């Protein structure tokens, strides 16, 4: 039967707290929703109700974005995997199966919601909500255009890294409370893997942060605009030669952070059934997948902000010159640019999943601690020296 899952309410409550934290920082001074609400506010509505309503609307929008992202990504994954294996993937529901995720969603909602007898019921119910809520909180720092965002404060990327790192706790909770050895193995692998790869992820991001001089995603994107167009993007070696190796390290690290192949050890199907979500079914099970696909997209968007120009692209420049700065056309160009760049990264991750075999857990650990972390440190040192001594003398960097 269709039942309301307490997890949904819980996750939106956590998101409310997290958006409230970030929203309070911003003072909602320039937020589009806030400005709109201030404009239409009747006299008798107290002033403090405006930010609360804005938070509510922002939560709704983030939830909608995450759900649509997850739906489209599951369809994309099945099509990509199908075509890589010389078959079509879903074809029956809608044109080339584009309604398949909707059908899947209905199926998952109607499925029986099972809780194993030996499970720790409270933690078992909280875990998927916690996983999704951490990610929803992180999505609040994702700006859709330069003027439409939920939380634009100085620590954008730091907040994303901090909040996405807490999904580990939810996964470990799910694995432990299921009271199954597959789940527990998956959870232990997740904890070890994520702690190991958070270090190279954060350190490799320091390279573009040093070049841009800011944690803020919008400022980083603005720093890559300018007269040379696409040649101004951070990834080019003439901006900083250590950027390309830093991006490779970043990409490997986000593969491990989002539990994607070849690092999908926490849910390795061929050895652990489904890893930490073996016992889950129905809508709770789909929460884990929503988190995975939304996290893939979020990390790819972060990568495109820091290495591939963010909002800057020929399309955005054209839209800006036709419609004017911050016009609707310009914002549409910026939003579609960043979404397309994000999905290009997601496509690359799917391609890799169907190309590379899974690595062993000791190889994962060796790679994270012995190779990626020292290499990331070397990148940071080299990039810092370049920024301090060489970049000031380059005419295209001034």
């Amino acid at each position, binding site marked *: 039967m269709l039942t309301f899952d307490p997890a949904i309410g819980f996750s939106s409550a956590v998101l409310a707290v997290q958006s409230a934290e970030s929203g309070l920082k911003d003072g909602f001074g320039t937020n589009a929703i806030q400005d709109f609400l201030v404009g239409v506010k009747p006299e008798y509505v107290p002033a403090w109700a405006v930010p609360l309503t804005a938070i509510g609307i922002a939560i709704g929008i983030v939830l909608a974005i995450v759900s649509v992202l997850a739906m489209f990504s599951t369809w994309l994954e099945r099509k990509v995997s199908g075509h890589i294996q010389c078959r079509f993937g879903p074809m029956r529901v809608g044109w080339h199966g584009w309604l398949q995720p909707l059908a899947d969603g209905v199926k998952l909602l109607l499925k029986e919601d099972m809780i194993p007898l030996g499970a720790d019921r409270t933690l078992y119910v909280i875990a998927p909500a916690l996983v999704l809520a951490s990610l929803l909180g992180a999505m609040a720092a994702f700006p859709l255009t330069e003027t439409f965002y939920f939380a634009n404060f*100085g620590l954008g990327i730091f907040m994303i890294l901090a909040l996405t790192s807490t999904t580990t706790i939810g996964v470990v909770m799910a694995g432990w409370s299921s009271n199954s050895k597959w789940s527990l193995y998956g959870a232990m692998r997740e*904890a070890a893997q994520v702690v190991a790869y958070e270090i190279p992820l954060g350190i490799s991001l320091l390279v573009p942060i040093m070049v841009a001089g800011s944690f803020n995603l919008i400022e980083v994107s603005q720093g890559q605009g300018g007269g040379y167009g696409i040649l101004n993007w951070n990834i080019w070696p003439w901006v900083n030669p250590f950027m390309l190796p830093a991006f490779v390290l970043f990409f490997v690290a986000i593969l491990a952070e989002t539990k994607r192949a070849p690092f999908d050890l926490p849910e390795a199907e061929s050895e652990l059934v489904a890893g930490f979500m073996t016992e889950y079914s129905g809508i709770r099970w789909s929460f884990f997948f929503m988190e995975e696909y939304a996290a893939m997209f979020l990390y790819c968007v972060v990568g495109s902000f820091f290495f591939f120009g963010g909002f800057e692209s020929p399309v955005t420049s054209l839209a800006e010159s036709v419609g004017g700065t911050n016009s609707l056309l310009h914002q549409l160009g910026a939003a579609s640019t960043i979404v397309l760049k994000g999905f290009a990264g997601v496509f690359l991750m799917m391609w890799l999943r169907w190309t590379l075999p899974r690595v062993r857990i000791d190889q994962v650990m060796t790679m994270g601690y012995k190779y990626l972390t020292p290499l990331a440190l070397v990148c940071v040192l080299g990039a810092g020296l370049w920024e301090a001594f060489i970049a000031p003398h380059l005419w295209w960097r001034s």
Partner: protein
Amino acid sequence: MDQKALQRAFYGALAVLTLFAFGAGLVKAGGEGAAFALFAVMTLGGGLVCVWERSIVRSAFALMSTFSGVAGVFVLLESDFLAMAQILIYVGGILALILFAVMLTPPDMEERRLPRVLAALVAVGAGVSWIGWQVAQTAEWLVTSRPLDGTAAEVAGTFGANADRIGVAFLAPDQYVVAFELAAVLLTVALVAAVYIARRKRTDIEPQTGEGVS
């Protein structure tokens, strides 16, 4: 005594206290008060659950609430960098390691009684509370007001600059650079020592395994 009933009473009392604190905060100081009440309950309630809960893994998970609550208090104190660092390091890192260690212990520790030094603990807690109350009564607090009414744009310029200020303060020669470098050296020494201890133990137990273990 019936442990289950005791547990249920404890959680019921916690819920009632939460509601009471939330209402009191809302009445006393509006939105900010409610937020503070929420974070205070998260911090203290998480700590209480951590001590009270019979399952050691649940205790570890309760710490998440405590750490997040402390991060929320940092946000209310307008120190957003500290708040995010708290979440990144404590929730994302240290708690994951605690869970890792806890899961290596036996699964069901039925006999997890409050220690016999309960009276001493209560006395220490009462003493600390009394000192805290005295400090709260006598200290001269520096109060800044942040309006929650949408006209906060004029103060928004000062937010988010925390990271810059902290970075400069850590590395400026006339500020905290000595303390910062000393902490870095201390952490490096701890790391090297941990690796040394871990390596030596392994060779003691399995002297002949060679390349396979690493």
